[in-house]
């Protein structure tokens, strides 16, 4: 693979009406590389990846795929270019079957001419296989409704789907948030596998351990701007933790909470220490 980044943002701003969410974001991800996007709640991570997924159009700046500027006409356009995204919330439809969920928007069909028929057998078979690869071996029936699955099983289904359809770029917004230890490990393994296959991966997490396990490259967002951009090994775990907390010194914060609890009969402080 050449050195051209598979996907790149150049000076991207995004605002919703008067609310500015992203400022001057520039990022690149190469093939076979994992970018960890870190930051506090509300920093703009989800908004950033929605811009990459074609959900939002940037207010200013440009998105480049393989070095070529592109304007996604919608999420479908991004998907067709091999960019698959697992969004932070939702992604599954409780009253639909596993097979139909898995292939939402990309339905396999058989039949002739305009009379397309949803190919339920194929859909169910592939969906079950792919979900089992994620370590969810309890799902054996593709006709089963997703509403009967646990939160983590649903999340795994959404990830399995993205892995299956993501040909070039895989974007995961807090994929491990709802997962058990074993499934989280599976996701990290999947990320590594995707990376080996030459995909560019963008991974959002609030867990330092997960970030340090898979990340090659880290970008920290604070209030919609990139506050730090560094490679693996350039910063210590403590430094990364502090950056993820929005620039606060976590060690100080923890110490102050402990001090508070000692003087207040073991009760934590009532107001959050942010700002």
């Amino acid at each position, binding site marked *: 693979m050449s050195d051209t980044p598979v996907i790149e943002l150049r000076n991207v701003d995004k605002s919703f009406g008067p609310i500015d969410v992203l400022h001057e974001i520039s990022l690149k991800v190469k093939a076979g590389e994992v970018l960890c996007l870190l930051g506090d709640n509300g920093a703009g991570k989800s908004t950033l990846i*929605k811009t990459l997924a074609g959900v939002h159009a940037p207010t200013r700046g440009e998105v480049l795929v393989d070095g070529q500027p592109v304007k996604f006409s919608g999420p479908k356009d991004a998907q067709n270019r091999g960019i698959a995204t697992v969004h932070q919330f*939702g992604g*599954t*439809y409780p*009253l639909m079957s596993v097979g139909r969920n898995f292939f939402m*928007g990309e339905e396999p069909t058989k039949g002739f001419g305009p009379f397309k028929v949803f190919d339920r057998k194929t859909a169910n078979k592939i969906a079950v*296989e792919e979900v089992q690869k994620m370590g969810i071996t309890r799902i054996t*029936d593709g006709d089963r409704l997703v509403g*009967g699955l646990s939160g983590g099983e649903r999340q795994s289904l959404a990830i399995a789907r993205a892995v299956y359809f993501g040909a070039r770029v895989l974007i995961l917004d807090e994929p491990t948030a709802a997962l058990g230890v074993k499934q989280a490990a599976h996701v990290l393994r999947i990320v590594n596998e995707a990376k080996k296959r030459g995909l560019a991966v963008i991974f959002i997490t609030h867990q330092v351990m997960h970030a340090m396990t898979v990340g090659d490259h880290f970008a920290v967002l604070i209030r919609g701007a990139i506050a730090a951009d560094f490679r693996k090994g350039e910063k210590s775990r403590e430094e990364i933790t502090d950056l993820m907390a929005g620039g606060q010194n976590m060690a100080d914060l923890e110490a102050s909470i402990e001090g508070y609890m000692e003087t207040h009969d073991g009760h934590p402080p009532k107001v959050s220490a942010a700002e």
Partner: protein
Amino acid sequence: MADTSNNEKSTGGSGFSLLGLLRRPEAGAAAGFILVFIFFSYFGWDKNFLTPLGSSTWLNFASKVGIIAIPVGFLMIAGELDISVGAMIPAGGIVMAMATNQFGMNIWFAVGFTMVVAGMIGWVNGMLVTRTQVPSLIVTLATLFVIAGLNAYLSKQIAGTTQHSVPDAGIVSEFILGDYHSWIIGEGENSFTIFRSLQSSFFIWIVFSIVCFYILHVSPWGNWIFAMGGDQESARNAGIPTNGLKIALFMLSAMAAALVGVTEGVLANSASTTTQFGMIFNSIICVVVGGVLLTGGFGTVTGTFFGTLTFGIVFQGINFTSFDKDLNMLFIGVLLLIAVLMNDTFRKLATNASTKKKG
């Protein structure tokens, strides 16, 4: 690595057992239909509930509600409602009447013209709902009155009356849009007798149901309709054209309602501007009795079909029994309550389906 060899039997095997059949989402509606049918067949036997003439009474009634109930059900599955159908039915009739009487169109042009007008009104409904984020209940409640007002006003302005006469449409269009009186069937008693009293709307309903069944359950687009009602945001993120699809569904319901107005006009040779408020509730009742969830994301065309039949029988069937006619509304209310409670149970069964297999 996980073994996937046991998939085959579990995916292929389900659906044949009785339990599997009961878990189908339309099972509740079908069971309800059978119960109600047996009930009225028994109590209405003496008053010809089951004779060709008798059954055509409730079948004709059901077909008119049914043509509207299916697209209303689509919208409900997609998480929306359409109240404006109550004014679209008379709109269909009077637009066709005026197109033939005042604009001198031939019947087929007039029907086409009516469908275009209805489609445009549906488009406006859809645009208002998708652009403003105002709940469709409110949007279509407003357009219901706007259309009703326009029906009366334009009628008076263009034709000078609110009661239009619809000229005889000729044998072919009578056959397709009206009924079967004059064609094929002779006067005598024979096995086709039922066709003499069945109206064309019944056959339109059957064909329309089959087409809609294909769209919702067989074609890939059905998935998208369910997804919109299940989780609109995720559906949009998955690249499904939620706005366009929703607008198309509003157009479909407006056109279906107008078509019912057209068939009524051709049948009665007259069309009036009277808003059919009752049909709003009737269509929603059929859909809910048919097992479509009010909250969206779940439902079937088959269920709606059975729900409509059930509703038709309960609504008309009381005339065939010795029960007091005043109990009619009470019956329908009870039916609706039972249906809603049953739907809940069946939905739980459906979500838990096959959980037992994991052992």
